[in-house]
């Protein structure tokens, strides 16, 4: 079944390179294990060969589609449908020599800037110096309002949002170091110390309990007026939900839906399909007070004064009762550590939070931030790194 039996290693290397181009990251160890595996199976059975390669090269369900597609193309019998054949002839010689990093696997143009974010360790204050250079073509995109994007630009920004959400989740899961004075006896260090006193424990060494991780609650307004913006926020939410375990996500218009389980383990596009079925009534009005009330009733165990970070994403155009909104915001404020409100309209310089809903809610909000372009998302990122 394999075109060049004498040259299986070459073919496997080429195949792994093709996979890398599809963003399935295959290491040289994976290839070597696959080669070892070949001697263990019967090559006449294409299915076994397929599973051998899949188990070695794929490491997530999301990569399976790309793998299946390439597998069919690469290892097919029919010469006319195999676009790799010419490549094999051309590149065979250098493929064997270079191993892990083929020259075709170069970062794409837009990557230098996004790579910087991924590389940042998240220490406070460092990020300012790592801003994307001003002449970068991406700069324009970063400043542009989400609602003014062309379709192909949209794709790029979508990737950024995913990367950033992953980065935020690493701040949140970071643990603090053990302090010198805590409430727990550190036996190990105490005994170590006692040796110099001939085994008599003279000094007690203490250790501090690691702080429990912050719980994150993200609530997204998906009513009609928010349409284009909430698509971006949903993507951000989806990224966080899949990278940070202590996270719960909700969407609301007139009523509230808990969408954590819809996000988990699904790709964003699958999620949107599911959401638009039952949660997203883009055309609907907004009732923030009622939505928060619902959240209080059903999900109050998620709220904790020291540990919950609460993010609301909404333009504040509320059609519900002001009194209800006021009382709900007041009690919410007491039940969470920080209340952050993101508003897409804040991008407009002339915007004043005068509309009824926003002015009612504002006194209870700890941080009021814009969310209308990618730059504002990075502001949020900076804020999160400080909390």
């Amino acid at each position, binding site marked *: 079944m394999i075109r060049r039996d004498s040259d299986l290693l070459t073919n496997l290397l080429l195949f792994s390179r093709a996979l890398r181009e599809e963003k399935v990251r295959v290491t040289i160890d994976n290839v070597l294990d696959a080669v070892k595996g070949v001697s263990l199976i019967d090559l006449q059975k294409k299915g076994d060969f397929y*599973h051998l390669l899949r188990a070695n090269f794929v490491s997530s369900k999301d990569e399976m589609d790309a793998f299946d597609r390439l597998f069919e193309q690469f290892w097919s019998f029919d010469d006319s449908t195999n676009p790799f054949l010419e490549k094999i002839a051309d590149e065979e010689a250098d493929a064997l020599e270079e191993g892990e990093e083929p020259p075709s696997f170069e970062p794409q143009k837009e990557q230098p800037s996004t790579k910087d974010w991924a590389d940042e360790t998240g220490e406070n204050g460092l990020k300012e110096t790592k801003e994307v250079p001003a002449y970068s073509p991406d700069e324009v995109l970063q400043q542009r309002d989400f609602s003014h994007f062309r379709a192909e630009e949209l794709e790029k920004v979508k990737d950024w949002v995913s990367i950033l959400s992953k980065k935020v989740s690493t701040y949140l899961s970071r643990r603090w170091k053990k302090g010198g004075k805590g409430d727990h006896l550190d036996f190990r260090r105490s005994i170590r110390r006692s040796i110099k006193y001939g085994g008599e424990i003279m000094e007690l060494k203490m250790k501090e309990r690691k702080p429990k991780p912050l719980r994150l609650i993200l609530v997204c307004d998906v009513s009609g007026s928010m349409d284009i913006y909430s698509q971006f926020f949903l993507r951000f939410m989806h990224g966080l939900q899949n990278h940070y375990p202590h996270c719960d996500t909700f969407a609301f218009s007139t009523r509230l839906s808990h969408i954590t389980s819809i996000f988990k383990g699904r790709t964003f596009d699958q999620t949107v399909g599911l959401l638009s079925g039952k949660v997203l009534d883009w055309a609907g009005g907004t009732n923030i007070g009622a939505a928060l009330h619902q959240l209080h009733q059903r999900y109050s165990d998620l709220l904790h004064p020291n540990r919950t970070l609460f993010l609301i994403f909404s333009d504040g155009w509320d059609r519900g009762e002001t009194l209800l909104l006021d009382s709900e915001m007041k009690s919410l404020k007491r039940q969470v550590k920080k209340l952050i409100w993101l508003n897409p309209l804040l991008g407009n310089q002339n915007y004043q939070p005068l509309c009824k809903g926003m002015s009612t809610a504002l006194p209870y909000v700890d941080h009021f931030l814009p969310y209308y372009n990618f730059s504002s998302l990075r502001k949020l990122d900076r804020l999160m790194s400080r909390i």
Partner: protein
Amino acid sequence: MFNSIEEVQQAMERHQYICERSLATVVYLALKLEKPLLLEGEAGVGKTEVAKVMTQALQRRLIRLQCYEGLDVTAALYEWNYPKQLLRIKIGESSRQPLESVDNIFSPEFLIQRPLMEAIQSESADQHIVLLIDEVDRSDEEFEAFLLEILSDFQITIPEIGTISARHRPLVIITSNRTREIHDALKRRCLYHWIDFPPFEKEYRIVTTKVPAIHETLARQICSFMQTVRGKDFYKKPGIAETLDWANALIQLHKDHLDRAAVEETLGCILKHFEDTKKMKETDLVSCLGALGEMG
């Protein structure tokens, strides 16, 4: 030890685990290549069961590490036995032994072995190990980093003693429910396999194998019903574990076929979310039962 994929598949079936050739292939490769096997899939599709079945099939000993948030080295790997160390110091003191003997308190004798250490240091040659690291997505990322060292070289470094290498590489099975992404480096060290919900025929075989007392019609109805339910939009789709629970429950209630009343009484076996139960009763039950009618 097995010499072909067929042998693995047959052995698993002998131990009442019905599986596709694809799963048998990766298990076989995990054994032959001595690589850990990462199994992902929805809850209740039988990921953990693979480790249990392989333990029986290989006649090995199962060591299980259940992951949870905050799991750390002292709970997973080893811990020094502090009270014993203290006593040793005291004895040394009262018998006026020289101070050097204190050094010995950091020897294997004073080590408490936790699951991972136990798996690597299995004493006797005939007692091979299956190591199950269950629900790794629940553990913290720092713990993952630490698993990386162990799973790539099968060795543990203890500062006071040195490096301990595994005499026999255990079969390592790692499961994840995908509540979060596992770190890429860890995943790349493993063979990967996704276990899907079973198709009808497979599920039917599983039910009749695991619940031999079940009536054929009821088994068919249950499986067909579950296929329909999984096609619907629920928060938490029921797995094979739920199917088996349900089959057992229906037998206990002396049901020999499915009808509206029977399903409503036992709905708690398959749907575990309030919203799902509500949605089922209000909208989906009719169509799910309807699908049974078509089947005959």
